[in-house]
């Protein structure tokens, strides 16, 4: 009589019966399972996928060339021919926004990869070797961190000049301290675990240890930072372009499109509305996705 059946138990029994074959449960699979249950994260993922598709197929989606000027159709309000309207040169804002996705996403991707390889690597080294290596790297990062990220980026752009590679370099340097710090923390967290100590005790080589144990285990956290940083770099890039340091016209970067529309804010607010919307949606999507990943990889944090 000890066993008592409740409706909740039946529900779970049914759920288990529905799951046909048992699946080998790996951490990544567990994370995916948690991720799948998280509605907001799925929304984020779908939005990101759509944006990536827009970026990849910009030339098919955009009805006009992003820099084609049409003096017969200047400053038009959104209409059937020009969904988002046109700017003062008669350029189609919809096409510019679509190509903007390509520029913004890919520059952000490059920025993030660069940041991960510079700051991230420094952080991993600092976290892994500890001691003097850690002290030196982190003290230097302290110095970098005393300069606000965006100021650092602007200074570097002013040295290197406007342009995409320059911008990537600027964002990379500017984000180095944050990246290093986060990755170091991720490595330290793994490093403190018993299984690392035990593999050290049985004499696993250092390189093997970093590649085989530390990086896979810290990978979850790093992916979270990676996605989060995509949003940060898009925001930084557009802020810089907007105040005139960063990319140069006529690149259809969203911040620059906004800058173009600045003068016509009162008369034609739509010129700023759509690019602003694109920035918002993109950053929002990345943040939703990043947040979902955080919950999936690190269930304790929720």
């Amino acid at each position, binding site marked *: 009589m000890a066993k008592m059946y409740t409706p909740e138990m039946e529900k779970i029994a049914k759920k288990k019966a529905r799951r046909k074959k048992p699946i080998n449960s790996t951490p990544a699979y567990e994370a995916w399972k948690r991720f799948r249950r998280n509605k907001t994260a799925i929304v984020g993922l779908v939005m990101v996928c759509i944006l990536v598709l827009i970026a990849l197929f910009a030339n098919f989606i955009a009805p006009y060339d992003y820099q084609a000027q049409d003096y017969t159709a200047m400053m038009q309000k959104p209409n059937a021919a020009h969904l988002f309207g046109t700017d003062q040169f008669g350029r189609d804002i919809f096409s510019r926004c679509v190509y903007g996705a390509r520029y913004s996403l890919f520059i952000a991707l490059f920025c993030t990869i660069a940041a991960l390889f510079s700051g991230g690597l420094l952080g991993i080294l600092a976290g892994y070797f500890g001691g003097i290596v850690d002290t030196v790297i982190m003290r230097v990062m302290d110095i970098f961190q005393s300069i606000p990220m965006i100021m650092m980026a602007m200074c570097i752009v002013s040295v290197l000049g406007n342009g995409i590679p320059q911008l990537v370099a600027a964002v990379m340097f500017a984000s180095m301290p944050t990246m290093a710090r986060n990755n170091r923390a991720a490595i330290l967290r793994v490093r403190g675990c018993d299984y690392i100590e035990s593999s050290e005790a049985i004499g696993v080589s250092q390189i093997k240890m970093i590649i085989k144990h530390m990086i896979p285990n810290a990978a979850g956290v790093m992916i979270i930072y990676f996605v989060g940083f995509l949003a940060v770099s898009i925001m930084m890039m557009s802020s810089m372009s907007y105040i005139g340091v960063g990319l140069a016209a006529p690149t259809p970067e969203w911040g620059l499109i906004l800058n173009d529309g600045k003068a016509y*804010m009162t008369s034609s607010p739509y010129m700023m509305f759509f690019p602003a919307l694109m*920035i918002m949606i993109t950053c929002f999507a990345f943040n939703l996705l990043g947040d979902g990943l955080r919950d999936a990889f690190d269930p304790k944090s929720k």
Partner: protein
Amino acid sequence: MIKYIIKRILYLIPIMLGVSAIIFILKTFTPGDPARVILGNDATQEQVDAKREELGLNDPVIIQYGNYIKGIVTRGDFGDSYRTGNPVLSEILPRLKTSGLITLGAVAIGAVIGVLLGIISALRKYTWVDSLVLVISMFFQSVPEFVVALVLIFIFAVNYHLLPSSGIETASGYILPMLCIGLSSVASYTRITRSSMLEVLSEDYIRTAKAKGQTDSNITKHHALRNAMIPVAQSIGTNLGNSIGGAMVLETVFGVPGVGKYIVDSITQRNYPSVLGGALIIAMVLTIINLLVDISFILIDPRLKSTIIAGGKKSKKVKETAAKAA
């Protein structure tokens, strides 16, 4: 305790040296001749050469850097602006007040809203309130400050003429910049408050308080909040750095004559003494505020006091034993 503070203040020195070195290196790589920038395009080559000699630009970089540091240490001289010829410090100091006010206001707005939302969302965890709060705060995190600024300008200045769209001639000019920077940091405070509240609420001492028969609201107020605020206070330092960065952009957008706009203008004009001075002062302010934040923890968390004091004593002891051994 005092020893700790002195140690932290001394720590400023390498930071300042490092920051100035970074900017100095950037300066040397900047294309264009500063002497030409000062004198304009009409100046003759002789005049430019003379100016270069006067500014010490022909010396090796390391000597220039040494002279610069010497100037700061001995005379409090951060150099002269290329553009106006005035001492940088005298240009920055009056702007510091404006920027400080905006940043502090922004931090206050962000922290108050963020902490409140975080508490609400932690207490109502896994309900629709929680999700709503998280989505809203994430939305504000996702929007660059200048876009928020544009929207607010459009609503309050262009459409309704309630607030000025730029300048700080009236006190109401401060409102929009503060609000924009503040809103963008709300998300980070909300998130930290929420997770630290949730963590604290699952602690054993909360269960002890419940076992005492304490009410939920009192548990939140007297037991959870103070413990949960420790990581939140810690995050103020980092957020402040972001807020200062945000202020640089927004002062430019709103045309507010603060340090941020000064630095942005100087960067675009390649006016390096001003950039250097601004960077140093911002770094100094940031470091000092971080120190103040750290000291304020000791007031929140009694555990830290003894670790800091014990830490100090221990290091002294270690030194003594080391000296003996030698």
